[in-house]
C-alpha cells in the first residue's frame, strides 16, 4: 500500500464508505435488534422462537414457493432468451420484455386482481371454451403465476446476455464434428450459459423468498412467506426483535444461496 499511489486510497473511500453505511451498518443494526425482546432486555428468546414449529414451517413453505417460482421462471425464460438471440431485432424484442419491469409492482398486481376475477377476462375465456368459471384468484396457482410473471424479465436478461456472447463459430464447429442439436446444446450451449442461469436464479430465488404484497393481494394470505412474517412483526405486532431475527435468517439463507450458485465458473468443459 505504501509504495503504491496514495491516490488509490482516496479513490476507494467513497466505495468503502458506501459499503459501510448502506450495507454493513444496516445488517449490523438488524443483528443488534434481533437480540432484544419487547421490553428491551437482551435475550436469545427470538432465536429460540424462530425454531418453533410456526417459523420452521414458514421457512419451509417460503423455500418451496420460491423454488416453484424460480423453476417455472427458468423453464419459460431459457427458451425465450434462446429464441430472442435468433431474432432479427433482438435488442428491440428484449426491450419489449424488459419494459413491464419498469411498471410499479403494486400496479401490476392490482391489474391481476381484475384479470383473474370471477368476471374477469381469463374466466370469460374459460367460459367461452367450455371449461367453465373457475376460482383463480386466491389459489396457489395464481400466486405462482403472478410471481413468475413478475420475475421473468430478471431471469431472461442474464441468460440472454450469456447466450448472446456465444461465438457462433463454436456451434458450427460442434456441428462439423458430428454433434446433433441435443448434444450441441448439452455439451456446448448449456455449459457456456450456466453462469447466466446461476445469476438468473439468484435474482429470482432470493427476492421470491421475501415477497410480501403479492401474498396478500393474489394469494389472500393463504401463502405465507418470510417476507410477510417480517412485515407483520414490524408493522402489526411491533416486535422489532423478532422481525429482525427473521430478517437475520433471511440474510443467512441468501448468503448460502449466493455461495451455492456462484461456484466454479465454466461448468463441465474447461
Amino acid at each position, binding site marked *: 500500500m505504501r509504495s503504491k499511489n496514495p491516490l488509490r486510497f482516496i479513490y476507494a473511500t467513497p466505495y468503502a464508505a458506501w459499503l459501510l453505511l448502506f450495507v454493513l451498518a444496516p445488517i449490523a443494526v438488524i443483528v443488534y435488534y434481533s437480540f432484544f425482546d*419487547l421490553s428491551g432486555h437482551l435475550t436469545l428468546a427470538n432465536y429460540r422462537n424462530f425454531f418453533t414449529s*410456526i417459523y420452521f*414451517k*414458514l421457512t419451509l*413453505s417460503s423455500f418451496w414457493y420460491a423454488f416453484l417460482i424460480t423453476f417455472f421462471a427458468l423453464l419459460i425464460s431459457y427458451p425465450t432468451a434462446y429464441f430472442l438471440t435468433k431474432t432479427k431485432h433482438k435488442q428491440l424484442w428484449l426491450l419489449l420484455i424488459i419494459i413491464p419491469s419498469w411498471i410499479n409492482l403494486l400496479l401490476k398486481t392490482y391489474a391481476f*386482481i381484475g384479470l383473474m*376475477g*370471477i*368476471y374477469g377476462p381469463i374466466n370469460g375465456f374459460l367460459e367461452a371454451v367450455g371449461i367453465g368459471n373457475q*376460482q383463480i*384468484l*386466491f389459489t396457489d396457482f395464481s400466486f405462482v403465476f403472478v410471481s413468475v410473471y413478475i420475475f421473468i424479465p430478471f431471469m431472461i436478461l442474464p441468460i440472454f446476455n450469456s447466450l448472446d456472447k456465444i461465438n457462433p463459430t463454436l456451434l458450427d464447429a460442434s456441428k462439423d464434428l458430428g454433434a446433433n442439436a441435443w448434444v450441441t446444446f448439452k455439451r456446448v450451449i448449456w455449459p457456456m450459459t450456466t453462469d447466466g442461469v446461476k445469476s438468473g436464479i439468484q435474482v429470482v430465488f432470493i427476492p421470491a423468498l421475501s415477497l410480501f404484497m403479492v401474498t*396478500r*393481494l393474489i*394469494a*389472500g*394470505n*393463504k401463502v*405465507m412467506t418470510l417476507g410477510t*412474517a417480517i412485515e*407483520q412483526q414490524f*408493522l*402489526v*405486532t*411491533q*416486535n422489532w426483535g*423478532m422481525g429482525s431475527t427473521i430478517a437475520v435468517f433471511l440474510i443467512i439463507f441468501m448468503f448460502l444461496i449466493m455461495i451455492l450458485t456462484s461456484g466454479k465458473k465454466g461448468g463441465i468443459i474447461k
Partner: protein
Amino acid sequence: MRGLISSAFVIILVSGLLLFTNYQLEHKTGRVGKDTITVYNWGEYIDPDLLKQFEEEEGIKVIYETFDSNEGMMGKIEQGGTAYDVTVPSEYAVQMMEEKDLLLPLDFSKIPNVTHIDPYFMNLPFDPDNKYSIPYFWGTVGIAYNASLLEGQTFESWESLWDASLRQKLILVDSAREVIGVSLNSLGYSLNSTSLQELKEATDKLETMGPNVKAVIGDEVTQLMINNEASVALTWSGQAADMISENDDINYIVPEEGSNLWFDNIVIPRTSTNVEGAYKFINFMLDPKVAAQNAEYVGYSTPNTAALPFMDEEITEDERFYPDEKARENFEVYENLGLETLGVYNELFLKFKMGLR
C-alpha cells in the same frame, strides 16, 4: 468516461433544480408558514368540501395527508419530521400514543362544540375523561353479505360462519384481533381476553373454519364485494356502508353474541406547531352541521348527537349503523392488551393463516 461524467452532472443538476422548485413551492403555498395546519387522517375519511369551507371561514390553509394503518401513522409521528397538527388514531392507538408521550392534553375551553358529543361515547376506558382525544367516528365489526349469491343464510349468530354451506366463500379481514374476536365472541369470551387457555380454545375453533375461508385480505374486500366476486365478508361497519351504497344486494349484520365497538378519535400530536389552528379545526369538525355533512359523506356513524337531526332519517334510523342502546350492551371496546399479548394474538393468527388451503 466523459459521457458518464457529463450524464452524472446532468442528473445532479436536474435533482438540484427539482429540490429548489419544491422548496419554492412549499414556501409559496405556506407549507411551513404560520397560517397552515397539517391534518393526518385515514384515507377517504373526510368530505373534502369541508376542508375548503374551513379554509374559507378561518383563513387557515389545510395540508391534508392520509395513512392506512395506526402503526404506520404512529411511526411517522414518532420520527417527527412533519409537523402534524391533527391526527385520528383508533382507540388502542390513543392509549399507545399516550404511553409513548406523543399526545398533547386537550383544553376543552377551546373546543366549545365538544358538548355535542353523545355522553355515551365520552370517558371511555382507553382515555378516561377524554384527556387527549375526542371520538370522530365509531362503528362495529360484523358480517357483510350478498343475499343474491347465497342460499338464504342470515348470519344472526357468529356460528353461522362455520356453516358448511359457506365453503370457500368467506373473506376475512387481515387483522388478528377481529378474526380471533369472532371465535372469542362465539364462545362467549371477552374480546379483550388475555387468558392463554381461552385464546387457545378460540384459535382451535377458528381452525375448523379454515375450509370456509376464501381469502384473508385488507381493503380490497370492498371492491370484491361490490363486483359480486365475493359473497360473505367479515368487515367493519363503515366498509360495509361503502359496499351497500354501491351494491343493493349487500346487507350488513352484527351477530347477536356481541361485537367490537370501535372508535377513531381526534387528537393533537406532540409534533403540532400550530396548536391554536388545530383547536379551531377540531371545533369546526364538531359543529353539528359540519359533522352531519361529513358523516353522510364518509358513511361511518357519528358520535355527534346534535348532528343527527341534520342527517337523512334513512341513515340515522338504520339499526345496522346506529344500533340502539340495548344492542350496544353486548359491544366491547378494545383495550390495549400490551405488546406481549398482541404478539400472542398475532402469532396465533399467523398459525391460522398458515393452515389455510
